[in-house]
């Protein structure tokens, strides 16, 4: 009797075992979600975001324009992501990682059980595939350059299905930043087009949503040509909040395209959109003033990462260049001349008139908004026309009876400032500088050119005299601007692509920039970059003028909103955003 019962029990046990084992999930372990530390919110609602233009593609490999990148960033995920508020690397698709002591090897351990937005599993093969695609010369992704360290492309190896190893040719200061915003691609969808050589052509605008997949909080639901792109919640997203709710909270994220800046302000004001991040200072003030009965918040986040500057053409002159060109170039190459110009410019007026006070004057190129890297010890000489005149006098300039500035040979000093047409602020800055320099007796004319025509002059023909331009954005780390400060760099605007540094200070900057790129000690890097900033402020290859504040408008009632000056100002943590009170977003 007992034996039969024992046999029955054994059979039942065996049956139970087989049953449970066969019912176990395909993957080896349970999914490992990332648990966020933000407030617990409620699901539901839609958020309408104003975008200045329609994205041109949904292909993360080839996207170059900002709108495409902004939308793609909401549908894709990276291995290691920098928290935009704390600027510290956080685990993303990689649940943990280790770095070798020399900083050249990263071992990333991927989360288990993650799926793409179409339900397919994610593992190391996708990571390998992604890196291969980004680094392939034939595909020509703009991100390829960022994956070259020590002049060699980084090497990525698969250790096991959930571990990858990344090897760099030399230590890389920014290390983990390599992985930030590098979208991981679905091998199951893109490998075929890649081997057939048509990867750049896929995932364009007409692609049906079913043909796309990503690891971001949202996935494409609908694209209405010329008007909006609607993203819906990704049910397979790998983050949850503390209470175990799956993120994102929002049902839908809508990007609506409004090409004109003034129309953007109107659209936001009417309540047809919830988020606008590109308000000009003037429109900000109008919205502020018109705010009676308003249900939106206008946030001035302080100076951002952009910096606007004036620079002179310091390319060396060809031997057969006409005399006037050689003469003007000689003025521009004199430090005293540039110093005088910098002293005469009324930066406070620029802040007040162009930005209505919502900007920070600059004397060095790193704006105060870049808290981690700005050199606070730089001298900030107040505006002084007398000192400017003194500098000019010492450099051999003089004034004629009419008050016009003449150089050593008695030629009147006059030059043209160019800037691009699309940007009203830069045009206004040029007009202010024009008037300021009039007080020094310099006759400045202002020419505006369409952007590509301008770039052609600046970078190809070098046929210009002075220019007002702006740079910035990204994350503020100096590694992003290597090509600006290296004398051989393509964006070394005043004298690009030098085979050898033309001046001693440029040579020093070259050395400093190269060194800071391979050191992992942040304090040492800061010290080196401080010195670069000091050299730039002393030698004035660019005359830094102003850094505009980041101005954002958001409908009231959005929870977990943590706006920062880093991209994307309001949406970088879009998966955590939720509506307090109302279940839905924009009115219509």
């Amino acid at each position, binding site marked *: 009797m007992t034996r039969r019962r024992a046999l029955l029990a054994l059979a039942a046990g065996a049956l139970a075992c087989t049953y449970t084992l066969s019912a176990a999930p395909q993957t080896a372990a349970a999914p490992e979600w990332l648990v966020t530390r933000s407030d617990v919110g409620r699901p539901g609602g839609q958020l309408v975001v104003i975008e200045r233009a329609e994205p041109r593609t949904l292909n993360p490999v080839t996207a170059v324009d900002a709108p495409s990148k902004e939308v793609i960033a909401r549908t894709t995920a990276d291995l290691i992501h920098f928290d935009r508020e704390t600027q510290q690397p956080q685990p993303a698709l990689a649940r943990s990682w280790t770095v070798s002591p020399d900083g050249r090897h990263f071992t990333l351990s991927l989360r288990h059980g993650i799926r793409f937005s179409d339900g397919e599993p994610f593992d190391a093969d996708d990571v390998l595939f992604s890196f291969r695609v980004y680094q392939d010369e034939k595909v020509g992704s703009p991100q390829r350059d960022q994956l070259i360290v020590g002049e060699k492309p980084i090497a990525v190896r698969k250790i096991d299905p959930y571990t990858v190893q990344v090897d760099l040719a030399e230590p890389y200061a920014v290390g983990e930043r390599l992985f930030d915003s590098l979208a991981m691609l679905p091998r199951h969808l893109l490998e075929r087009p890649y081997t057939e050589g048509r990867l750049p052509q896929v995932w364009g605008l007409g692609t049906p949503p079913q043909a796309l997949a990503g690891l971001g909080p949202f996935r494409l639901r609908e694209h209405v040509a010329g008007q909006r792109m609607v993203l819906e919640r990704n049910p397979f997203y790998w983050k949850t909040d503390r209470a175990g709710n799956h993120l994102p909270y929002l049902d839908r994220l809508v990007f609506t395209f409004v090409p004109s800046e003034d129309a953007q302000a109107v659209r936001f004001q009417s309540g047809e959109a919830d988020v606008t991040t590109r308000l000009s200072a003037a429109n900000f003030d109008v919205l502020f003033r018109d705010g009676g009965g308003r249900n939106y918040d206008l946030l001035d986040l302080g100076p951002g990462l952009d910096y606007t500057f004036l620079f002179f053409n310091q390319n060396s002159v060809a031997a057969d260049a006409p005399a006037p060109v050689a003469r003007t170039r000689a003025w521009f190459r004199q430090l005293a001349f540039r110093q005088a110009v910098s002293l005469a410019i009324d930066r406070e007026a620029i802040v007040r008139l162009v930005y209505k006070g919502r900007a920070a004057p600059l004397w060095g190129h790193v704006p105060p908004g870049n808290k981690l890297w700005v050199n606070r010890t730089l001298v900030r000489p107040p505006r002084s026309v007398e000192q400017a005149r003194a500098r000019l006098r010492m450099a051999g300039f003089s004034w004629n009876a009419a008050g016009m500035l003449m150089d050593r040979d008695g030629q009147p000093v006059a030059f043209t400032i160019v800037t691009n047409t699309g940007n009203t602020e830069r045009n206004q800055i040029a007009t202010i500088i024009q008037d300021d320099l009039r007080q020094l007796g310099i006759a400045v004319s202002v020419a505006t050119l369409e952007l590509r025509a301008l770039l*052609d002059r600046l970078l190809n023909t070098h046929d210009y005299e002075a220019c007002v331009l702006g740079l910035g954005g990204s994350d503020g780390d100096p590694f992003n601007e290597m090509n600006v400060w290296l004398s051989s760099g393509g964006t070394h605007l005043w004298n690009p692509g030098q085979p050898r540094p033309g001046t001693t200070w440029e040579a020093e900057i070259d050395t400093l920039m190269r060194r800071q790129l391979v050191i992992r000690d942040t304090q040492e890097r800061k010290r080196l970059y401080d010195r670069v900033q000091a050299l730039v402020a002393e030698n004035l290859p660019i005359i830094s003028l102003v850094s505009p504040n980041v101005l954002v408008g958001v409908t009231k009632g959005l929870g977990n909103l943590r706006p920062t000056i880093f991209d994307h100002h309001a949406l970088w943590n879009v998966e955590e955003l939720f509506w307090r009170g109302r279940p839905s977003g924009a009115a219509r």
Partner: protein
Amino acid sequence: MPAVRYLLVRIGHGLLVLLGVSLLSFLLAAAAPGTFADELRLDPRVSPETIAAMQARYGVNRPIAEQYFLWLRSIGRGEFGFSVIYNGPVGPLLWPRVRNTLLLAVPATILAWLIAIPIGAWAAAGRGGWLDRLTIAATTVVVGIPEIVLGVGLLLIAVRTGYFPTGGMTSLDFDELGAWEKMRDVLSHFFLPVAALALISLPVLVRHVRASLVEVLRSPFIQAARATGVPERRLLFRHALRVGVNPLISLVGLSVAGLLSASLVIETIMSWPGLGPFMLDAVMARDLHVVVAAVICSTVLLIAGNLCADGLLYLADPRIRIGRFP
């Protein structure tokens, strides 16, 4: 039949004009400095080599003659060119936008004409009187305001009154609306842009209607008709208008084409997904095939408009119909 032959000849001419326009556009485009990849040149993270490779891959630095033949071949294949910035054929990008622009342009033209004819006629009839003076003054004021200011002004009205949406073509929840509501939604979005376009075209039309009718009202046969007791209103609309319609017909031919340039500004400001902003963006981004395709579209509309106008002229003026003139 001579009419059919005439039509065929005109269509033949039209094709020649199209070829000429496309060729000239290509040649002129070669004059514009820069390429589509230049957007990246100010990004310090991208190397000049990558940019050069991108340009080489899309063949934008090839000689213009070669590019032109490649484009013709693409037309033959039905793609209407390849957009370098969208990385796909131009056709599917273009057609919805052409449709959207026509959706604005045609009603705006009709509206403008419907308003212009009576106003112009009454102004002509009461020449020198208060209505005439007011008409001239009002049309001059409208002409004196830049189109973009008009557009922003209308947006201002939209946001202040809340009666109209501030741009776009359809609302966010368009798909969930019923058929009738969908139509109402599109109508509410299209009211302001059409009003703007009609307003912009009115001065030209009103002034020409008025000028032409003033001319006609002076002629002997009108005096005669008036003497025989024909009422003023019938005189104006039945007799004078029919004779004075000649320059107006030529205007109709030019109307739609002229509207396309005005619509560029209005569509941009009102975020209407039409041809205008699309083409402007392509010009700024140096996407050659898109620009040429858009130009071809407007040329076709222009030629069609002129053809219709010439046809109407033929019908309206019996003297022209007689054929060869001495």
